[in-house]
């Protein structure tokens, strides 16, 4: 396959960026999108140019590092991560636009790499259980009803890639935060800190400068792990409940 790439190039956080055009040839439809970018980078290095910086780690769709907006879609046209997107989703001769996540809370570090440490700080605000964990406990020690376990698991699938923020016209982190809140709040292990968790995490989310939710649903459409839109309603419910409870204390 022969492709024309238009890639966002930006030297550093302070510099102005722009789209640069590159031609790549000899791309196999079996390559992943990141392997296609590797091919481009090899050529750039040979020519003595600066290779395109992009985040990646596991390359198997589980770590949440990769983060490309491809033709206007977070992670491109398929419901998967950029690393699991294959070139067979494109046609020979296509022009493909590649941009970084866009949000005030995710500033560009270089080219396609953005700083997502705002997510870490949301997790640090309450996305954990304050208990000595030690070795894995016996699985039946704490019974969890099946529907709750399923609900927790569905939300635990979030890999924190930030596609939801990138896709949201308001740069909102509601889907990410709701996945983390719901995952722990429904489980018996997470329930003692149920109120403080949701209040503190939402507080941190707002402090990071993410936008509010207008229920456009772009986040859930973009999510490579299929975190559903009603997760946000579920977190709103938790938040309202926590407000009432904490106010009564």
């Amino acid at each position, binding site marked *: 396959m022969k492709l024309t790439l238009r890639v966002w190039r930006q030297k550093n956080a302070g510099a102005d960026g722009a789209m640069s055009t590159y031609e790549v040839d000899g791309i196999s439809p079996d390559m992943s999108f990141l392997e296609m970018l590797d091919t481009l980078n090899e050529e750039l290095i040979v020519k003595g140019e600066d290779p395109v910086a992009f985040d990646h780690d596991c390359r198997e769709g589980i770590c949440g590092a990769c983060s490309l907006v491809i033709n206007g879609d977070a992670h491109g046209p398929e419901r998967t991560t950029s690393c699991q997107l294959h070139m067979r989703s494109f046609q020979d001769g296509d022009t493909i636009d590649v941009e970084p996540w866009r949000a005030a809370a995710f500033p560009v570090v270089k080219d396609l790499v953005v700083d997502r*440490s705002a997510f870490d700080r949301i997790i*640090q605000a309450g996305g954990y259980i304050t208990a000595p964990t030690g070795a894995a406990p016996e699985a039946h020690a704490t019974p969890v009803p099946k529907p709750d376990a399923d609900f927790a698991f569905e939300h635990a699938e979030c890999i924190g890639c930030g596609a939801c923020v990138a896709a949201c016209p308001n740069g909102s982190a509601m889907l990410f935060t709701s996945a983390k809140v719901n995952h722990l709040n429904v489980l018996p292990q997470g329930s003692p800190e149920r109120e403080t968790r949701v209040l503190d995490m939402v507080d941190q989310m707002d402090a990071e400068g993410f936008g509010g939710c207008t229920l456009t*649903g772009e986040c859930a459409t973009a999510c490579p792990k299929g975190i559903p*839109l009603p997760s946000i*309603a579920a977190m709103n419910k938790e938040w309202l409940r926590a407000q009432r409870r904490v106010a009564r204390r």
Partner: protein
Amino acid sequence: MAPTVISMALATRPDKDTAPGKAPGKRPSPARSGMRPSLVRSVWDSTIGKKTVMAVSGLIMLGYLVAHMIGNLKIFFGPEDINEYAHWLRTMGEPVLHYEWALWLVRIVLVAAVVLHAVSAYQLSRRDIKARPAKYVHKRKRASYATRTMRWGGIILALFIVWHLLDLTTGTVHPGEFEHLHPYQNIIDTFSTWYSNVIYIVAVVAVGLHVRHGFWSAAQTLGAGNARRDKVLKATANALALVLTLGFVSVPVAVMTGVVS
């Protein structure tokens, strides 16, 4: 004992972690410490809280709109029917309440709802725009029409509310001989001008679109939405939007076509 922290994303700029006021370790947890602000403060200062204010005020206005639309339909039963209804609106609650007290109560609640709704909408919209300063170079169509028109639709509605009150409540911009407590004739005079028809029909379509996204959206904000209920909520939103639009639009159409004269 230190809490277990799962690192989700790459902390590519660790210097920012130590920025004052950003790192949660250095900010006292408002929920845990006794430094929690009042309920009103913490609701108003939060994006979720402000959205809750929008949802509640929106639903109050929606309830009023349904009643208002039903009241308007009385025009199809002749002048006595609707004029008497206008009179009843002022005497409702009597003898417990004095003349027009109940009506003023409704007006106060509605003004509060409109102001809270508009202020929240303005503040949240400003925040949303700031949170996404750079646009994507590659454009594509996003979200449904009703969703994308909430802000413009809301502004149209705000302007319409002012015009509508000046037209049929105070009579200030009324095209005919405005007569207090004679809505039948006043309505016919209003819809005898082409511009009033345009203004009212545009506003009513805007209401329909706003309610279509707004009702479902309010259910999500208030935590009533879930996967099982989604179809029912969407269908209710569509039905409400359709009934309100048709009900309201029937009056100018009836006057224009001479069904009511």
